[in-house]
């Protein structure tokens, strides 16, 4: 009897362990990876932003606690203010451009036409091309002497006199030039996601609207936009996060110039961390980036919860 009880008790315990602990065992490896590659760097980064962790302490590996000093200094730093302004401007232009062009392309690719599959594949090219290769290609396109853009404009009769130095002759032009490259890079993602959203709209709605005599404008307003609201919110959020943190393309194309025209916060963070070796200060800039991202995410959650 005791043996039986022991056996059944053991089975219960085994069942209990399998039921309650085993799932945790399965997610443990992923949890460890997340802790090591996400949580630890985040916590460490935040900690560093409250320290003076500069060249000399860096070599002795001893950050010195300075409280809010780095953040106070950031508020007084005109390069930070300029970079913040430029980053916001860059994000608004690029994300809007990506969304508008992505939506237009998604609508076009949602229509029935021959070779649609091929076009859907081709549209992914900018997304697939590595950022560094894309940046180098754009430098060539914008090249003042040999760039294809100047050649095309000249052949079309739109450019007379001296060739345009797209990345250098004025601050606005340089910012717009890198924005175009940024839009080009991100449009495929927008297009594909919005296209998926469009395809999830029941065909019956279009048919009903056709019967009711709705115009294209009305179809967009009353069918497409409401159905794309959630997916648009998600893609806009993701795109905003990626664009706000963009570094490689802009850094390669302009190094942040001319005259701070394309000096993004990510470039400033890199400059302060790896050129100035001011790790604490760079972590504070990254901390500000994090706060901005959190505000955007909070806004996103607020919007989606309200929708629900």
């Amino acid at each position, binding site marked *: 009897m005791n043996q039986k009880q022991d056996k059944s008790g053991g089975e219960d315990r085994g069942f209990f362990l399998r039921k309650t602990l085993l799932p945790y065992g399965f997610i443990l490896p992923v949890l460890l990876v997340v802790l090591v590659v996400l949580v630890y760097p985040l916590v460490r980064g935040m900690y560093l932003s409250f320290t003076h962790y500069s*060249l*000399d302490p*860096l*070599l002795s*590996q001893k950050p010195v606690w300075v409280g809010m000093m780095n953040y106070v200094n950031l508020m007084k730093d005109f*390069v930070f203010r300029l970079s913040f302004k430029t980053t916001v401007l860059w994000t608004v232009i690029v994300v809007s451009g990506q969304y508008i062009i992505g939506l237009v392309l998604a609508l076009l690719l949602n229509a029935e036409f021959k070779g649609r599959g091929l076009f859907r594949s081709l549209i992914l090219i900018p997304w697939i091309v590595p950022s560094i290769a894309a940046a180098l290609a754009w430098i060539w396109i914008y*090249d*003042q*002497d*040999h760039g294809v853009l100047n050649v095309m404009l000249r052949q079309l009769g739109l450019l*007379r*006199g*001296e060739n*345009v*130095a*797209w*990345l*250098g*002759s*004025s*601050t606005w032009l*340089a910012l717009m030039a890198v924005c175009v490259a940024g839009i080009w890079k991100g449009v495929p993602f927008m297009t594909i996601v919005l296209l998926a959203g469009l395809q999830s709209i029941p065909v019956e709605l279009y048919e009903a609207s056709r019967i009711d005599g709705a115009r294209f404008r009305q179809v967009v307003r009353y069918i497409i936009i409401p159905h794309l609201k959630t997916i648009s919110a998600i893609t806009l959020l993701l795109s905003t996060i990626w664009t706000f943190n963009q570094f490689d393309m802009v850094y390669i194309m*302009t*190094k*942040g*110039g*001319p*005259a*701070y025209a394309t*000096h993004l916060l990510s470039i400033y963070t890199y*400059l*302060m961390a*790896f*050129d*100035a*070796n*001011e790790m604490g200060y760079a972590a504070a800039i990254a901390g500000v980036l994090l706060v901005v991202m959190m505000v955007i995410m909070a806004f996103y959650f607020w919007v989606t919860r309200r929708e629900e």
Partner: protein
Amino acid sequence: MRIRLSVVSAAILLGLAPGVFQAAEEKKPITLTFFHMNTVPGSQKVITDAIAAFEEKHPGIRVRETIVGWGDAHSQFMISLVAKRAPDIVMLGGTWATEFIRLKAFVPIEEFLPAEMKDKFLPNAFEALRDEKHLYGLPWEGATWGMFYRTNLFEQAGLDPEKPPGNWAELLAAAKALTRDTNGDGRIDQWGLGFPAKGWEPADFWLPFMWQAGCRVVEMREGKWRGVMSDEAGQTATRFFVDLVRTHRVTPQSITGMDWEAVKNGFVAGRFAMMFNGMWVVKVIRDSAPQLEGKWATAPYPAGPTGIRAALGYPNTLHITEQSQHKKEAWQFMELLYSGHPSRLDQYSIEVCSLNWTKNFIALPYSKDPLRKPFVDSMTFAHYPPGAPKYEVFRKRILNPGLQAMILGQRQVKESLELFDREFNALHP
């Protein structure tokens, strides 16, 4: 009996062990790591041959190269220092040594360096390699910057191609004469003067004007680095520099988007009749534009308003790191890089079309080439960029964007120079 035998055997083995391990230790090959930024195939062959010769002479030592791009070298070396994995021998950009000397990253080199070897170098070659007490490395190859001009365009403009501008007034006069609308469409298509002002380059072309005007840019005052860019001479120089674009319009404002290569392309295409650029461009033009032969020449920077001659020019540097476990062997390898007839340093310099600050190099036929000679002559009045510890940060964060803003007409000269001084001083409390 069996136990006793085992004990004896074990004792013998233990007794021999240190000797065995010691022998293994002695036979263990030494690996020297050599961190450098060479990317030119010809000069790489000089390094590869030097390594082969060294390894043949020292069979127990291997040399492993770490080749890093110029853009990443500074941060990569810093990271290696922090990670306590610094290479044994390191080649650095000429302006970086000061910062790392302050961090005690290098070994003082006097104990290795024979007096006769030190005497081979020009005295100003060691400017950035010493502190108050010691010398921390050797000069490697480097460059000076100077003027390139199109002799055929000089002739077309009625200027004497044998007489390049010798001072600022002549520079401006020549640039005005050379700035032209050649096809009559009402727009300038040939500019008198070009110089790179993209990214991190403007400061390198502004500094010579500052020195020529007599401005020291930064100076040590009561133990502190202080910016003196806004003094009278600094304002004169910067105003002249900016007015080339804004007032006299002999230089296009699009230079803020041009690196050295873009300006070189403009020079080759005839869009710039004169340009300031580095010495390596001599080789680049010769190799890439043979059709220009006989249509261009070079000259040193013109002198400033008070006759001061100055140019930017400095050697890169080689060091043995403090973290190296094989300092003696590292020196042996370093010494080999400076040996031979012509020396490996000379071979390397010739391959990359640069200079080195040795007395012997000036006498080589290579240095007497008419297109190179002005750059060789400039070595005597060439300066390093300011050696303040945070100058590099100041240059990238404040100075270059500030110079670009002035060129683009967004900021005034005086207010910008005062800002430069303030920000520089803030970085050097």
